[in-house]
């Protein structure tokens, strides 16, 4: 329904357009696209196009289903469960469950932030993520919902939509609902898309209301590392993802003139976000896996946890070092007494006197005061009490160690802890220290040890010296990518002259420590790719220095350009990366953006050489983040542990018939090669990942110059890391003009062996028949 002017007793509305219960912004000239607020089936056809090319390879992590009282049902092979479900559908269903958890987590995070910030700043507070530099403030939200949010209050309807969709998706997981694995997979994509919207809302509102860097390529540097805390001061450690309680601590310190009296340090994304708020008053300890090592060091005098990625035993670990803990999220209450309504002074007194080891406070403002006042009271008494054993205790344990191997068999990375203990028995702790660099900090070794040895603490003690020296610089999360940056790089990316955008994202479940992520970042920045980063990966990139003591953030620029290393922020900042790809389609190619998902995704898939890399992907959030990129046509690589997500989306380059796109000019179906070859891929080693990154940036629309540049990097990396030329070049060379000039001889030899024949180049490839200009079909 449209109304030029609508008058009621209380208000006058002009240019009002009402569509199925939602209010659309009538001042936005761009027409509403085909799929505003898409339902769980509206983009199913698009999903099936991708799934036809990238068929799921299921690698079940469990052979049974135990979700209902029919079960456990053995689904091995071609068996079906009591409900009729087979193994393929069950695996897809579990993937969907994981992605629903991820999407719900980010959406819940966004809802909490939005409500809190509306309470604090009002619903009319303007959304501003980049001032004049960012006209398209919410590319994902615009694309998916068709809403152009201007004020905080506009986002309620967006989150209503996300919450509804997640509920429908979760409902599809119920026994007796979906029966097709491919339909489950389509819903996985939908969960990922919803997740991107939820994350975008979360980051938009916190950037706007808290004044985080607004698309600033020169966002300031701040400190990161185990050794950054000034241990002469009381130390507050914040852990989690949802930043209001951490910000209230900073505000309280500022308001009370206690600048410099207290150290505020953080772990995981809340640390990233609190440094976006104040890079001078807050510091980052490290990624998620740094929790135990830092808590047990006794350095924190008080711990504040919010939500997500917090160890479930945080309370127990805090009690061990006699540090009070404040839980501040309704999603993570830790069994603590709710003291939200108590007077701050009473809570402070109870915590300081040890009457309570922790409290739940669901009012961020109160958390600030209680945390600061409590830490001032407890720090002098605690005297940095730690539970890291001394060397003598390690040596005694090492002598008692029976080499039963239980620790090693529990370790995700199969670290040779028994061997290190054997050497420790001789007085040499070096192997224990070395192991720490590959340790993901899970402490499963300790749970498994029949002697109850605190093996993780042994490693921390052995590596104490290097931990204390851990001081690096990280560029504060900059937020969105500027429209002007997109205008500058859009052409070179689409034409292939900037060889690709590499997004290093995700958790810290690394197979060999975070240094591999830093290595990937530098390799591709040197090669003039655009390297973007978020979350724990953004931290790991910082935690390596060169011979001159410089970190990558000090060596490489923070702008979204060739050779940049761009920290956009925390987990919820990931949509800035997706948004950059969307904005290339919208700003550079001028494709209508508003609720036009399929066409934009088709453009990104066929033209924008972007690839996500979640080298340490661990969580359900990482799964949903990846699935949001898949639907948009951006492939994702995970590390070997990512194989435990139990299904890959793999192309078959040996099946020629799978790789035909339409030429949008003529309608011809043209072989475009396996570009990109995979949509979701687990690499066994970092070398394999690096070669695959270069390969997955190849797109059908590359110009000959662009393709030659991309092939140069693919071939060069393959030769260096594999020791031989790639054997699939015939699939990527379309005409002789694609061949890198400096590699012509050797490439031609390969092509000759493969009986290569010159093919066709299409400038406007598409998977969508409706986009064919000259319709012959």
């Amino acid at each position, binding site marked *: 329904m449209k109304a030029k002017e609508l008058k009621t007793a209380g208000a006058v509305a002009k240019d009002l357009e009402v569509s199925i219960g939602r209010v659309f912004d009538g001042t936005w000239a761009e027409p509403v696209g085909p799929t505003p607020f898409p339902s769980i089936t509206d983009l199913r056809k698009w999903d099936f196009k991708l799934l036809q090319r990238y068929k799921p390879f299921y690698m079940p992590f469990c052979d*049974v289903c135990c979700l209902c009282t029919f079960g456990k049902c053995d689904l091995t*092979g071609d068996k079906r469960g009591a409900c009729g479900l087979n193994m393929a559908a069950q695996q897809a269903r579990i993937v969907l469950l994981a992605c629903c958890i991820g999407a719900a987590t980010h959406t819940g995070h966004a809802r909490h932030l939005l409500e809190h910030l509306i309470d604090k700043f009002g619903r009319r507070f303007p959304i501003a993520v980049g001032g004049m530099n960012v006209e398209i403030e919410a590319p994902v939200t615009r694309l998916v919902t068709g809403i152009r949010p201007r004020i905080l209050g506009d986002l309620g309807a967006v989150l209503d939509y996300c919450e509804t969709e997640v509920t429908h998706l979760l409902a599809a997981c119920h026994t007796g609902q979906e029966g097709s694995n491919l339909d489950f997979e389509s819903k996985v994509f939908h969960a990922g898309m919803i997740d991107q919207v939820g994350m975008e809302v979360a980051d938009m509102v916190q950037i706007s209301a808290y004044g985080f860097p607004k698309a600033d390529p020169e966002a300031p540097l701040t400190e990161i590392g185990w050794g950054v805390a000034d241990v002469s001061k009381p130390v507050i450690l914040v852990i989690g993802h949802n930043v209001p309680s951490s910000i209230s601590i900073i505000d309280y310190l500022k308001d009370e003139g206690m600048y410099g009296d207290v150290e505020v340090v953080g772990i995981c994304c809340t640390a990233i976000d609190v440094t976006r708020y104040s890079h001078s008053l807050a510091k980052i300890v490290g990624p998620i896996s740094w929790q135990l090592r830092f808590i047990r060091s006794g350095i924190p005098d008080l711990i504040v946890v919010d939500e997500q990625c917090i160890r479930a035993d945080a309370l127990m670990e805090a009690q061990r070092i006699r540090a009070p803990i404040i839980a501040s999220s309704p999603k993570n209450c830790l069994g603590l007494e709710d003291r939200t309504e108590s007077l701050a002074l009473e809570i402070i007194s109870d915590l300081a006197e040890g009457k309570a080891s922790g409290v739940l406070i669901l009012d961020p403002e109160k958390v600030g005061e209680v945390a600061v006042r409590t830490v001032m009271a407890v720090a002098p008494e605690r005297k940095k009490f730690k539970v890291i054993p001394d060397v003598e205790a390690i040596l005694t344990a090492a002598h008692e160690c029976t080499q039963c191997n239980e620790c090693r068999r529990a370790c*995700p990375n199969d670290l040779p802890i028994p061997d290190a203990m054997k050497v420790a028995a001789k007085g040499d702790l070096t192997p224990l220290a070395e192991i720490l660099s590959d340790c993901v900090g899970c402490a499963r070794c300790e749970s498994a040890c029949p002697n109850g040895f605190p093996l993780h603490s042994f490693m921390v003690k052995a590596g104490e010296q290097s931990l204390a020296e851990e001081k690096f610089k990280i560029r504060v999360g900059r937020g969105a990518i500027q429209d002007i940056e997109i205008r500058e790089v859009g052409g070179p990316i689409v034409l292939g002259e900037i060889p690709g955008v590499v997004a290093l994202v995700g958790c810290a479940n690394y197979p060999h420590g975070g240094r591999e992520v830093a290595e990937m970042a530098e390799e591709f920045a040197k090669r003039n790719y655009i390297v973007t980063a978020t979350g724990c990966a953004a931290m790991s990139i910082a935690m390596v220095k060169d011979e001159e003591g410089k970190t990558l953030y000090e060596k490489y620029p923070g702008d979204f350009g060739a050779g940049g290393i761009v920290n956009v922020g925390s987990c919820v900042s990931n949509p800035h990366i997706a948004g950059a790809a969307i904005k290339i389609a919208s700003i550079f190619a001028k494709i209508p953006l508003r609720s036009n998902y399929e066409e934009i995704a088709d453009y990104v898939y066929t033209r924008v050489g972007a690839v996500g890399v979640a080298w340490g992907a661990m969580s359900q959030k990482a799964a949903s983040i990846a699935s949001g990129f898949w639907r948009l046509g951006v492939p994702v690589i995970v590390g070997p542990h990512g194989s435990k997500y139990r299904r890959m989306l793999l192309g078959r380059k*040996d099946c020629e018939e799978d790789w035909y796109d339409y030429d949008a000019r003529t309608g011809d179906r043209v072989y475009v090669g396996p570009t990109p070859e995979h949509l979701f891929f*687990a690499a*066994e080693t970092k070398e394999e990942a690096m070669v695959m990154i270069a390969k997955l940036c190849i797109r059908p629309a590359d110009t000959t110059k662009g393709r030659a540049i991309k092939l140069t990097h693919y071939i060069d990396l393959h030769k260096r890391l594999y*020791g031989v030329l790639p054997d699939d070049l015939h699939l990527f060379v379309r005409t002789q003009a694609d061949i890198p000039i400096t590699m012509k001889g050797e490439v031609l030899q390969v092509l000759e062996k493969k009986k290569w024949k010159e093919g066709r180049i299409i400038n406007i490839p598409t998977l969508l028949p409706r986009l064919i200009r000259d319709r012959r079909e």
Partner: protein
Amino acid sequence: MAIAEPWQTAEIGGPKKALVITKPAVVVAMIKKAKHPILVVGHEAVETEVGKKKAIDVIIDLAKAAEIPVVATAHIVGEVVQRDFRPAAWMPAVDIGNRLKDSKWSGLDGGGQYDLALFVGIPYYMEWVILSGLKHFAFNHLTTISLDRFYQPQATWSFPNTAIESWAENLTVIGDELGGDV
């Protein structure tokens, strides 16, 4: 039948679990019986030391003796070629897993799908899930054997958890019995 436990304690497979290889002769017999076998070698083969050799040396000798085509996964093809051995192909572990799943795959040599796939040297947990994929989706046409020194419950056949020296000896015996000079 011997009982074996997965190397990573919690990586329990089943109800259907790998049969335990109690002696190398079992593998020899399986290879001899196979019409179209293939050996998939992961990157840990070039990192694992067996006495004065690398595991990859022992495995190449075995492959030569058995005349089995080798697929090198991850980045190790250069290491393999340096040893004057030409693998049939190199490709990521998940890719060869995906192809082995497909009953209509024409194989690396055009000879059709394989009937026996031997795995070695892929990280334990990654090989675990790939073998799981094959157990569930390739059971009609493929038998899998883990040649690693740790029990892989998702294979059709697997060695139990074995000391490195015994494991190397097992591989050597397999090579010897297949007529090689390991």
